[in-house]
């Protein structure tokens, strides 16, 4: 059984405006297809988890709110002895694939569908974030690969800083629970409108993008 493919929406931001205001002060891109697995070390097994991750992915699990990557896999520390592992385009099978490696020393939960994620860049991204999150995102205090679990307009979010974009400058990713995607998008549009907000493709038929005056 299957429905008409054109009816199906997978984007959390489907139907939302792709442009607000004038200019490209903030450019957002939805991250789709990212596999996400939550890895929580079993009681007293943090060392083993770190060993397995080093051996298999050549990553040292960060001991704090930071992100470390090795190839296509990245690890972000989100709580004591707990990380989010991500892999580009790996789907729900990624979490499953970790179980044979880590099942004896960690609890694995698939969260690939749990988040709506926007990558934000542009010359005014920091000025926009200043309106949205109550933390200091200055380059000197919020370094590359640092992440914060914070609030954005009364929504719990994770904010990561990535390497600056050569073209657009500072770059961040903001993660929110999928059910809050529309509210986050509205907050972003409000905050970035004065600088000009653009959400880059995917804005195709399943995303139904439109311009808001």
């Amino acid at each position: 059984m299957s429905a008409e493919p054109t009816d199906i929406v997978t984007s959390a931001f489907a139907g939302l405006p792709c442009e607000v205001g004038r200019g490209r002060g903030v450019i957002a891109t939805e991250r789709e297809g990212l596999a996400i697995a939550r890895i929580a070390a079993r009681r007293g097994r943090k060392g083993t988890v770190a060993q397995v991750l080093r051996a298999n992915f050549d990553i040292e699990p960060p001991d704090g709110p930071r992100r470390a990557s090795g190839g296509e896999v990245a690890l972000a520390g989100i709580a004591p002895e707990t990380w989010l592992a991500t892999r580009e385009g790996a789907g729900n099978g990624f979490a499953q694939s970790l179980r044979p490696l880590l099942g004896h020393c960690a609890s694995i939960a698939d969260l690939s569908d749990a988040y709506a994620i926007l990558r934000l860049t542009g010359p005014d991204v920091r000025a926009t974030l200043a309106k949205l999150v109550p933390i200091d995102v200055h380059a000197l205090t919020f370094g590359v690969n640092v992440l914060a679990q914070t609030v954005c307009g009364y929504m719990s979010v994770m904010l990561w800083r990535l390497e600056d974009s050569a073209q657009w400058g500072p770059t961040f990713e903001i993660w929110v629970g999928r059910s809050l995607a529309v509210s986050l998008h509205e907050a972003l549009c409000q905050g970035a409108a004065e600088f000009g907000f653009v959400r880059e493709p995917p804005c195709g038929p399943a995303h139904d993008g439109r311009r808001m005056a």
Partner: protein
Amino acid sequence: MNPNRLDGEGAIRRDRNLAFTFDGKRYTGHPGDTLASALLAAGVRTLARSFKYHRPRGILTAGSEEPNALVELRSGARREPNTRATVIELFDGLEARSQNRWPSLGLDLGAVNSLLAPLLVAGFYYKTFMWPAAFWEKVYEPLIRRAAGLGRASLEPDPDTYEKAHAFCDLLVIGGGPAGLAAALAAGRAGARVILCDEDFLAGGRLNADRREIDGQDGALWARHVTDELASLPETRVMLRTTVFGAYDGNTFGALERVSDHLREPGPHQPRQRLWKIVARRTVLAAGALERPIVFGGNDRPGVMLAGAVRTYVNRFRVRPGGRTAVFTACDDGWKTAFDLLDAHVEVPAMIDARREIPATLASQATRRGLRIMLGAHIRDAHGARGVSGLDVRDERGRITHVAADALAVTGGWNPNTALSSHLGGRPRWSEATHAFVPAGLSGSMIAVGAAAGDFSLAGALRCGAAAGREAARAAGFEAPVQTPLRVDDEAVGGTALWFVADSRGKAFVDFQHDVTPQDLAIAAREGFHSAELLKRYTTLGMGTDQGKTSAMNGHALAAILTGRAAADLGTIAARPPYTPVAIGALAGTHRGPHFRPCRLTPSHRWAQSRGAAFIDAGDWRRARAFPIGGEDWKRTLVREVLGVRNGVGVCDVSTLGKIDVQGADAGAFLDRVYANVISSLPVGKARYGIMLREDGIVFDDGTVARFAANHFVLSTTTAHAGKVLQHLEHARQVLWPELDVELAPVTEQWAQFAVAGPRSRALLEALLGGAADISHAAFPYLACAEFPWQGRPARLFRISFSGELAYELAVPARNADAAIRSIMAAGESLAVVPYGLEALGAMRIEKGHVAGAELNGTTTARDLGLGRMMSAQKDYIGRVLADRPGLTAPDRPALIGVKPLRLEATLRAGAHFLRPGAQPSLGNDEGFVSSVTFSPTLGHWIGLGFLSAGPARIGERIAAHDPLSGNDVAVEVTSPVFYDPDGARLRS
């Protein structure tokens, strides 16, 4: 057109005219003007009427401390009352109106109150409206409320937007005068992150108002150069039109940026105002000083203005306050006003100084200019019907001299602006040297400099400001070299305190905004209100929108004199935030209307929209309430959806239920401790209903627990308690039993979950899942659960039911939700599947007697809910001990029952209270209440659940459901709470 406009540029741009109206009359000003300076230039002296006596009032100050010149700004939806004309930046098309007058500003009938002045003294309300007591609520209070208040707020929705923002810095400089600029420059040049805030639209503070020299250049020009340099520094931000209004814990400050208040209306996507939360490692308080008036007869008449403000109007705005402007002072600063007026070719008929001696430099400058000096003299009365026309001056020998003047510059000295120094508990201390309070008890991260610290010299302000800036930079790790001190021109800053003129004639005012007089203070003192705090409240001194900026010090000094104490012994003057009024809109920011709070959408929201669903906000979520077809009313839809499920199959998005993944070697043992019933015995592949108690024995939450592997459980929680349950479990895991190997993961957002319910649900799922899972009754019995791949992605299936029918819940990864719901509808098309919403869900759970939020209301025990048998006696768990308290086990506690109306056409209402037939509705006769009601499509009449004292033993009894709110009393029969399929045969079919 503008008779009081002087030659020269000042800080206005004379090449452009701005048109504006005041009380409907057209005027022109220039960019750089305030409404006050432009009206003053046009010769307008009276701008307002006072609050209590409706006395004509003019402009007293040139800043945010203004108590008199309050106007209604703009019109229609943007009308804003009580706006200070002295801070309104002029724009083309500005509309302003006077307020608190009728029928006009010139002829105000409210001025009759002045005749009642002997009655309307401090404590008038308290003494007058005591009798008869019954009059208070119906007569006195409505009358007083009608008479109170200033200005009229617009009753239309605010068309503008507001937003909030956060900023962080090494140094926050509050105030852009010479001290603040010097501090910001020193720290900024060193590379520190600096924010400088100034409430004015031009940085420089008094440098724009006074004729000073710094390093050989004009002071205002120096300020402009420094501001430009600060703006060019990469880590320094100059925020003009921004008032730091409050200091809060954690080195946090609130600031209001007036982004668009100087424009006719905000530009596209521009807010009107922006509320900043600024976190600063160090703070330099360079908020300057506020000039204080002198209390003498007629000191409130239009034309009486503070001397420093006069210099601001003359030098910055190139406006004279009047044709003949006298000066009254007791300090050196007042003389500068006289000199500036004379140098601007404004006639000064008299320089009146209460001191008998003045510095020789002042005397020689005055003599050189030919100024008429009256030393040891006081003004007893400033008179004139619509404003000052003359002054009665008593000289040192007691002779009264009449001085003709249409304006009077007054200064009693300057009070350091200590407001922000006291927000965090600092208590300003009295300084005999400055005759004022100065900041004291500041936190280690704040330092006051310049006039704010009581140092009124320009040289001192620049020196201390720069030192504070350097220190802040060093504290942040930046080396700031010591600069050569800036050269400034000489100045005299001496003076004596002159609070009031004892033998004043005519009415004198201490607090202009609340019309508080020395007589009011005397009454308060006489009646025993000796504490400054009590005195303030009894007289309302300092309680207007200006918060006593020009009145608190004079009131304090007068109270000290009246009670025979020194000013220092009367306490201090502390302030609370906000420093100036902050609009509620700014505090709300973007969170208004549909954006009041974030809203969680269910995974099938867009599909539900496409089906024409009616939505309802339930807690954090927006859920489909029902799926009406055509012109159906709610009841028809409800009946169709419920019967569609009961007789066929329906589908409902139940993703909002909380889902928590529990793993670990001790997961089973952990769950045994948090649930009242045993979980560890649950076989893999099965689910079980469970209840959690709070520590106090009250039911906390309920839901199902499914076991997918020996060490892997998935819990469901109620929608409302999803977050709290996770918090509770994390507390238990991390704090109570850290030795257990348990890991929790919130997975609510990961899984979209659809209830497929009804006798045809198995047929639908078989068609949907194909060979992905065997869901025959034998392979997948009631309370079975399984995880399997479906359409290339994981899926979970639970055979659980909230509706009372054969039912399943299918969970798919959330990104698959849209495809899944469409697939379910397609698979069920031939089975006439109906989508159903929250309304039908609720109706069916009430029919089945399932408890939900209205029953799990934080006061009910498991026994109250009929779930006492679930409380295990074989193990310990949270809440076990306290659940056995006598009060919670009393046999007459209200317990869960069902009710149905005796007249089946009657409507039941939740919240109605149970009474025995014929009993009077009283607390003593109250036997319980109705918690949930619904029209039952299955039974064809209303039914309800409720809690009735000893309820389960009273099945069949007839009682009354009394609802005083709606006046609806219904005779009901007590029934079992399970109205439908009490044996559960349908669940297991």
